[in-house]
């Protein structure tokens, strides 16, 4: 029979210092040829003639194939949005991240408590939230832990487009979270409604019903982006406390 200790020693630690794991790609899409733009190029409301809103983008790159947008590897330039657009943690940021997290204790008197709230996702974002807690990305090493109740939470991590059937649940969950709190909209659906915009059964992004503090684009955003979004939320709470 397999023995947990032997197996643990054989495999060593799975935790990676680089939250990207060396595989994830970050894109820096830029509208290059507005004249190639035609109605219906993009399956979401993300693309207009001269701008690409990463908050609605599913990163399918249909606009790239149509020649409107150039998709280059790199860190995207945050667009004009009401809230910070967080795109992903880089390995180089890690020491700084650790320092910022150490400060969390001064903010909350404990580690950062996150409550995940799915208000209508396709479950893709939830898959990636789970991946962020895997022993490879291991959010807990940064002092971030997932809690079972909004009453225990500092941050609400919202995934999915807000469906009519969950509108009430979203508002009540936010109300049940004590101040100071931050709401993170994770993924195109939670930010703007993404590909589901146009259905009469959805109300759009979380901001339609509750104030959103941080948005993390992606469809779904990979674990390193989730980490970066949560850190951004933590800094925000810290700044508010200093206020």
């Amino acid at each position: 029979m397999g023995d947990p200790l032997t197996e643990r020693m054989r495999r060593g630690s799975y935790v990676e210092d680089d939250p990207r794991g060396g595989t994830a790609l970050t894109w820096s899409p830029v509208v290059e040829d507005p004249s190639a733009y035609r109605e219906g190029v993009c399956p979401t409301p993300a693309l207009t003639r001269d701008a690409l809103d990463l908050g609605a983008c599913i990163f399918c790159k249909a606009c790239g194939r149509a020649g409107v947008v150039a998709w280059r590897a790199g860190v995207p330039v945050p667009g004009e949005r009401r809230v910070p657009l967080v795109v992903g943690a880089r390995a180089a940021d890690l020491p700084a991240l650790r320092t910022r997290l150490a400060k969390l204790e001064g903010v909350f008197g404990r580690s950062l408590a996150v409550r995940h709230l799915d208000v209508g996702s396709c479950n893709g974002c939830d898959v990636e939230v789970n991946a962020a807690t895997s022993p490879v990305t291991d959010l807990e090493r940064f002092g971030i832990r997932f809690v079972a109740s909004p009453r225990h939470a500092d941050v609400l991590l919202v995934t999915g487009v807000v469906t009519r059937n969950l509108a009430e649940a979203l508002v009540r969950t936010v109300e049940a979270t004590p101040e100071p709190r931050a709401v993170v909209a994770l993924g195109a659906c939670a930010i703007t409604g993404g590909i589901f915009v146009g259905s009469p059964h959805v109300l759009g992004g979380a901001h339609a019903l509750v104030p959103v503090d941080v948005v993390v684009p992606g469809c779904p955003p990979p674990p390193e982006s989730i980490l970066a979004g949560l850190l951004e939320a933590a800094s925000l709470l810290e700044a508010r406390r200093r206020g």
Partner: protein
Amino acid sequence: MTRLACAGRVRGSTLDVPEDEWVPEARRLQREGWWFEGLWATAGERPSVRACWGRPGELLLATSACPEGTFRSFTSFLPAADWFERAARDRSGLAPVGHVDPRAFLFHDTYPPGHVEGAPLDGDARAQRSSYAFVQHQGAGVFEIPVGPIHAGVIEPGHFRFTTTGELVLDLELRLNYTHKGTLTLVRGRRLDHAARLLERLSGDNAAAHALAFSSAAEAALGLDVPNDAQDVRTAMLEAERVYNHLGDLAGIATDVAFSAGASHFAALREACMRWNARLFGHRLLMNTVVPGGLLQAPSVEAWSEYATALDALTPRVESAVRLVTEHSGLRERVEGTGVLPRASAELLGCVGPAARACGIARDARADAPCLAYDRIRVTPSLRSGGDVASRMAVKVDELRASLGILRSIARDAPIVGPAAAVVESGEGEGIAAVEASRGAVLAWTRVADGRVVDAYQRDPSFLNWRGLQQAVHRNIVPDFPLINKSFNLSYSGSDA
């Protein structure tokens, strides 16, 4: 009877059924050994209801006109039809006559009573306009435990109403559709490639299966041939999806019995597989790649060769993680005999996938309705007879090994495919496909014209298996529910559509 355009090597037929023959015809098909695959309805000028039936190597689509706005219900003799008929009623307004459950299904309390898809909706999206009556049980010591829609973990939303006496579960009523997004209506009129992007998001963790089922149905409708090499790559995507999902399920079961040492290994393996998804197909969850007619990107020779090497290294790691978990006496004590789904119930409810195979039902769309590369890559359904959590685990372990084997063989063949040609813009037709996802078969039906979707129906396997979960929980204790639930690991979004 005319020909039905089916994906792959499947014999398809259609059947026009007079309104008053709808029920007798269904009973006749049942007697002839056809199993029920699904039911949906279309409103409009010529309202009609459709039921899909299957047999090994065959699919049959029965259609009946509903000039009076009604159709006869199957539910009293075919419990599997229950949710299909309620969903069809809410989507089309066509009423299933003789159905015992008039309660709203897709639309919850902020919708007006009797709301039908397409009827105007206005005003405050949070104001309560209707109410829902849960089944009530009465008696000494009987009490209810309401759970959800917001659950305590990183899970999708849904409401579970347990009726218990002490620790024992007497009944579990599910109220789902919290994540109803109207996807099947939203897809109408979309370009075929955009429709694939939307439909793969019916259930993100089964994105490849949904995109492949829709694309295969659309290709059948248009008579498009996809070369073998492209079908091999698509098959690799489907098997890669099964691998990362089954690894996640095994991690989840270990987590739910608090065996975190075992869970860690599976979670790490799963992460490794998701990174390979990104490396090979451009997306960790296999999205944005499949389109009707082909693929938007595919692995290079070098990528295949590195993958083949990586699979050789992954396999012993999978095997030792499997040993660690399946041979652990504490874990076995929790999973053996827990959450038994009786075979008879699974048959009545039309359960599919590992949940059905764990109670001995030899159904697997890869063998029964072979499309993609499954006419060349033969799959033998993995079977167990216990119907408990341990049996579902054992089936998933078997399938994990088999899928890794298929992936190794495709990676060694290294099929090379160019990106799909321009978007399909002409032709029209109606097609159907069944693709075996990690939870069971995704059934896709679509009618397309001039490069756009006219109408579509897509059944996630979870829509059938949720009813099986309800049965499997009976006579178990409440604290075992998370474990039983995880052993099914159903999709809410896929079911809520």
